[in-house]
């Protein structure tokens, strides 16, 4: 067929689905949803850091967040969709990868792959379990039902005492330990994930890639330090 242009046969059905379910399309979905979740963990950390400004600061922040009302639900549902797509599309990719590699080599050579890259699925799934526990603990108050009764006065109004809940919650060394461990796994996941998403979205070149990789690690472990500072300070300084 020399001289015949590569065909661009009209995509059967919906071209957008054909795009998203192609190999590169699935990767793009994982990268974009990953970016949304990176935005979430960054914002969540900034909110959490109000802890260090005292009970009033944190309770004000929590109250304002709750006051968003329907908008908060839009964000929550958006995040849930992002998490769902991130996991489902990763699993679709993984299934294809398994099918493409029927027999492993007898000799295993790492060939440049980092521990962060090799543990993505494991760290992701453990973090998922952590998120479920974390929501049950601090959002749904299932782990310690007493949290529901924590009230305090803020500018004369009765509000939920989030600060006290956090302090009491993290005084349990098992809760704090699991939290810090999980955040370390988040940092593992993001050490590869954040650099990876720039590559997958095609925003890198040969000069930029090492810089993105370096910045992704700094970013991931800064998050870890920021998040862990709260349980560590509660455990060691009451």
């Amino acid at each position, binding site marked *: 067929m020399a001289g015949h242009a*590569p065909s661009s046969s009209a995509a059967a059905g919906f071209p957008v689905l054909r795009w998203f379910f192609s190999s590169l399309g699935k990767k793009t979905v994982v990268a974009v949803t990953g970016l949304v979740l990176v935005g979430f963990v960054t914002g969540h950390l900034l909110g959490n850091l109000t802890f260090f400004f005292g009970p009033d600061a944190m309770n004000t922040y929590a109250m304002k967040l709750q006051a968003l009302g329907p908008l908060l639900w839009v964000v929550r549902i958006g995040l849930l969709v992002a998490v769902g797509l991130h996991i489902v599309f990763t699993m679709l990719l993984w299934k294809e990868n398994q099918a493409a590699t029927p027999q492993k080599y007898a000799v295993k050579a790492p060939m440049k792959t980092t521990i962060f890259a090799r543990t993505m699925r494991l760290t992701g799934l453990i973090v998922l379990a952590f998120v479920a526990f974390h929501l049950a603990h601090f959002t749904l108050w299932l782990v310690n039902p007493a949290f529901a009764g924590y009230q305090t006065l803020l500018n004369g109004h009765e509000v939920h005492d989030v600060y006290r809940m956090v302090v009491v919650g993290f005084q349990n060394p098992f809760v704090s330990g699991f939290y810090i461990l999980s955040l370390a796994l988040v940092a593992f996941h993001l050490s590869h994930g954040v650099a990876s998403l720039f*590559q*997958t979205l095609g925003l*890198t070149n040969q000069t930029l890639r090492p810089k993105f990789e370096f910045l992704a690690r700094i970013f991931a472990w800064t998050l870890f330090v920021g998040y862990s500072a709260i349980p560590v300070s509660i455990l060691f300084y009451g």
Partner: protein
Amino acid sequence: MNFTLRVWRQDGPETAGRFEEYPARNIPDEASFLEMLDLVNEDLIGKGIEPVEFDHDCREGICGTCSLTIDGVPHGPGRGTTCQLYMRSFREGEVIVIEPFRATPFPILRDLTVDRGAFDTIIQSGGFISERSGSAPDANAVPIPKTIADLAMDAASCIGCGACAAACPNSSAMLFVGAKVSHLGLLPQGKPEKNRRALSMVRSMDEAGFGNCSNYYACEAVCPASIPASFIASLNRQYAVAAAKETVGATL
């Protein structure tokens, strides 16, 4: 030099394979890996054992025919093809494990030979330009910035050996496809078909059953042509643009 080889033997595509151990005696240290296998095969023929089948052609590092995964690394230690690997790179008395390139789209034909026809199918789907070549134009007739020409040349140095897919823990061919899509798409002659090329080559790659890149970068660690994985980013970018255009019906 003397070595012990643990070699993958497989009688045919459908039969189960196994490792066999063969001694490699009195091998000159300046012998290439393939010459070492030639010597071992002569020895095996003398003993009435079927020689080990392996792929080779130019034996000067440019054709991309030789394969072999040596001690878990496609093309073995160091940068370059298996034919450019010399036995002085190994220690005296070492046990060397030799396996075929492993990936579902590269079925094993026999012993260490695999069918890399999947790469040809991908090239046929778009790895060309539909321009009448005519006689050679003057070098300055089509101005191309030096940086672009260099980048296109870096991508064009891919010899299609398949080591990238063989090294990839997911058996992904995206470095190969990224190099091919980029080397044509960067140059004026290849630009008109840029979008169609990216779409059809990626689809052909998906149909062949290759896995998906997880950004492990094992591919660029073994590529004998030192093609960087930034061409995968370039592929991602070109494909996303092409697919977005196709979605709204704007593909040329």
